[in-house]
């Protein structure tokens, strides 16, 4: 007999035994042949809450309830039997629907009850229960209404709620006004949506005209602004390219698209552009600095994507998303570190009493891009060198932070290429992607610097210039510069903390 040898290391596993579990019945009812599906539609008016409930019962539970419906046990459900069953069951349902209006419990009355069979699959029947409930409520003043559906809560099935107002306004509702299943008649077949499971609704009402209410139930669409949507579309095209047949033209197009996509990707929020801007502004950066950051971003990003791609294809059990989360955290921490370093440097220099040179008039005097010599006049040689080194380190840190989190689309392209045995092509695309990112970031940095230079120039021309607005603006920026290094450091710190915190919520 073979003996099992059990190792000692323990790694949590994702998959569990499927043995010893009842076989999976293929479904007859769209939601499975033993589902009990419930819909509760609320209508709120000044003096009452009405609830129309529908329970759509699949084949097996319908059969299970058959003997309860057939009171006299003669094998058929007469109209009288169905009517009395509907009345009792709707009373049960009303007891399970827990409603409150401004702290006052809603006491339901069953206005009407219906129960009907219809043919299902396998020669079996399905059934449908309809209950119309009403409860008095004083909604003529701003009130909060909360309804919890606890009827047959342990059954598998769809749970849906809607709310509309008649003669009053629903200010804030956690449920939509229209049923996506048309009252349990047509279940949406979205592969990327779980069965609806809405069991409670909270609605704030205000007296006022109009029955309409904005559908506040979060319907996830393709993502917010047009830029993101456009990017997503290009993303999909791009991923298609890595997998299609490779001709020289297609390859060229793919590389161009990768550059474009990288550029667009860098234009989306993130990638430390805020920090880059703040840093450049605070440090009175040079074009070279913008290049440093962009270069670091590109190198880090390309390297990161390649490393992660190889790691993932190595077939380990590493969850890609988790890694992305941790990298995000590291990136945030890095930015915080840069911010702290900036602050520490400032404080140290303030101790030596030379901050005013750095922040004040110095800048307004020089737009000749030759800061270094200027500085040498004031500062000791070694100190200046140290400051520049720390400045370059800070820039590299920001670049590193910006590129540390690989863009998922670049990663997917790389993985696709590796999977198709086109690793080289994939690497090329990732590099092109990085180059695109670098272009955008450098461009942004240069524009920023140019803008800053102009502002400063306008500030110099203060007395003479006729443009009052520009003069004022220039004076404002000049004044801002006084506090800039500190504000910059603070901003960098803040953004870093925000990035880290956002990543942390994903990881933990």
């Amino acid at each position, binding site marked *: 007999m*073979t003996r*099992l*040898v*059990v*190792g000692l290391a*323990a*790694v*949590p*596993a994702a*998959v*569990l*035994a*499927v043995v010893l*579990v*009842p*076989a*999976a*019945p*293929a*479904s*007859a009812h769209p939601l*499975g*042949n*033993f589902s009990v599906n419930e819909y509760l539609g609320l209508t709120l008016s000044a003096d009452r809450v009405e609830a129309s409930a529908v329970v759509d019962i699949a084949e*097996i*539970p319908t*059969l*299970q309830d058959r003997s309860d419906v057939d009171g006299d046990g003669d094998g058929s459900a007469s109209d009288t039997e169905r009517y009395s069953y509907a009345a009792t069951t709707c009373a049960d349902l009303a007891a399970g629907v827990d409603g409150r209006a401004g702290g006052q419990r809603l006491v339901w009355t069953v206005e009407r009850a219906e129960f009907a069979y219809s043919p299902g699959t*396998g020669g*079996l029947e399905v059934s449908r229960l309809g209950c119309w409930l009403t409860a008095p409520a004083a909604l003529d003043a701003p009130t909060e209404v909360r309804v919890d559906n606890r009827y047959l*809560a*342990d059954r598998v099935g769809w749970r849906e709620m809607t709310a509309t107002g008649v003669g009053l306004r629903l200010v804030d509702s956690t449920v939509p006004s229209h049923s996506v299943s048309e009252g349990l008649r047509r279940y949406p077949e979205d592969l*990327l*949506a779980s069965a609806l499971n*809405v069991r*409670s*609704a909270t609605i704030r009402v205000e007296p006022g005209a109009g029955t309409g209410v904005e559908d506040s139930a979060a319907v996830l669409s*393709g993502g917010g602004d047009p830029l993101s949507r456009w990017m997503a579309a290009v*993303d*999909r095209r791009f991923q298609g390219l890595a*997998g299609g047949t490779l001709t020289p033209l297609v390859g060229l197009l793919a590389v161009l698209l990768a550059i474009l996509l990288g550029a667009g990707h860098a234009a989306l929020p993130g990638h430390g552009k805020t920090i880059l801007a703040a840093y450049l502004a605070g440090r009175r950066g040079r074009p070279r600095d913008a290049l440093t950051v962009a270069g670091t971003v590109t190198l880090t990003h390309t390297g990161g994507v390649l490393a992660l791609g190889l790691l993932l294809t190595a*077939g380990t*059990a590493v969850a890609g*998303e988790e890694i992305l989360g941790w990298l995000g955290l590291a990136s945030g921490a890095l930015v915080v570190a840069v911010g702290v370093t900036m602050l520490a440097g400032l404080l140290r220099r*303030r101790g030596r009493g030379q901050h*005013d040179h750095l922040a004040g008039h110095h800048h307004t005097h020089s737009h000749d891009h030759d800061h270094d010599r200027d500085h040498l006049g004031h500062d000791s040689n070694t100190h200046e060198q140290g400051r520049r080194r720390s400045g370059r380190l800070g820039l590299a840190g920001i670049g590193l932070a910006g590129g540390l989190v690989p863009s998922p689309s670049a990663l*997917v392209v790389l993985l*696709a290429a590796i*999977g198709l045995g086109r690793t080289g092509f994939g690497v090329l695309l990732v590099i092109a992607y990085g180059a695109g990112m670098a272009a955008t970031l450098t461009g942004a940095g240069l524009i920023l610097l140019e803008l800053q230079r102009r502002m400063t120039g306008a500030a110099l021309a203060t007395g003479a210039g006729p443009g009052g607005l520009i003069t004022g603006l220039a004076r404002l920026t000049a004044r801002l510069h*006084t*506090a800039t290094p*500190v*504000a910059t450091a*603070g*901003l960098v*710190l*803040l953004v870093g*903390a925000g990035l880290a*915190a956002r990543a*942390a919520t994903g990881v933990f």
Partner: protein
Amino acid sequence: MRRSIGTPLRVGAVAAATALALVLLGGVLGRAPEEPQVAAEPVAVTPVDRLEQTIQRSQERLRRVPGDWHTWASLGMAYLERARITADPTYYPKAEAAVRRSLAVKPDGNTDALVAQGALANARHDFAAARRVALAAVKTNGYHADAYAVLADAETQLGHSADATAAVQRLLDLRPGLSAYARASYDLEQRGLTDQASDLMRRALATAVDRHDMAFCRNQLGDLALNAGDLAAADAEYAAGLAAEPSSVALQRGRARVAAMSGRTDEALSAYASLTRRAPTPSYLIEYAELLRSAGREADAMAQLRLATAAHKLFTGNGGVDGLTGAALAAATGQPATALREARAEWARRKHADVADMLAWALHLSNRDIDSLAYARRASATGARSAIYAYHLGMIELSLGDRAAAKQHLTMALEINPHFSPLDAPAARQALANLGSS
């Protein structure tokens, strides 16, 4: 002048910025755990549900990047997991569609999708297909632990015990964790090494962090104790499992079985009534009917069996294949010919000990005891400590007139578990009494 104003200003700005950053950080970190994933769903669900998080994240990602076959495959796997936990079959077609999408994007060398496809086939009891797919997955990636998990399940159910053990061993080597321990435990149980099986399942439990996983391990531990007749230990395991996952149907069924075996019939009946409402699967309904019958409620038992028949018919009508359940159902409703046909068909598909046992019993019910003996012996020869195998063997031997062997095996059945079945345990006792008196 400027210096004297600027310094406090700057110090103030630093302080304010730092404070704000800290507050923001604290706020974000502090808020995260208590913020539910879906705002409109404050249901009675305990907070940590990794599966739910995985599903939502995958769904969102695929909405943005529909070509990500890795995520399609893992979404399929997650849907499958959800179907298993909630016993909600809606998710099987969804899982299948997700796996198909993954394969459509990347038809070759897509190990993840193959593994999910195999797991789906296992869940649908199409073990031969699961084995085929798992072998293909292993061929594309020999280091994919989940591929060996699927392979192990398929080989086990097909009765290829040596291959199953090899697959489990490979899984243990590649990723010694919950899924490996759980399967190794089942493998040991199949060979009658119940103590070692319990030890391993405890080790699996120690690695479990998700509440569904904990519930699964507790349920297996409970079943191991229950099958050995240790009702108190079994009850403790089920109770501990329900503390982690109160809505688990499997654990509720465990407690119902403990109640039934302890003679608390009313409690057991009401537990079965409630759990068969939630999960009206043929096997639970057959158990419920058996209990009703032992309590003398024949008419109610028949009603539950009719329900089980309807559920099974729906399953087979939709292309599902499960001869074991079909045979058990036919045997319980007094249709020995159907039981035999179903058992034979299942035996042709797979040579698992449970199927051998069912086929032996179906032959016995058709008065073909000479044929049945070989199958009953084959089931017992696996070494599994099963009271029901021993009981069936003993009764067949009794029919054949081998009184000594019958006495030995009936005694063994009651030794393994004195309460193994509400109907069969008393029957075994009765038979033994007759053997002793004559």
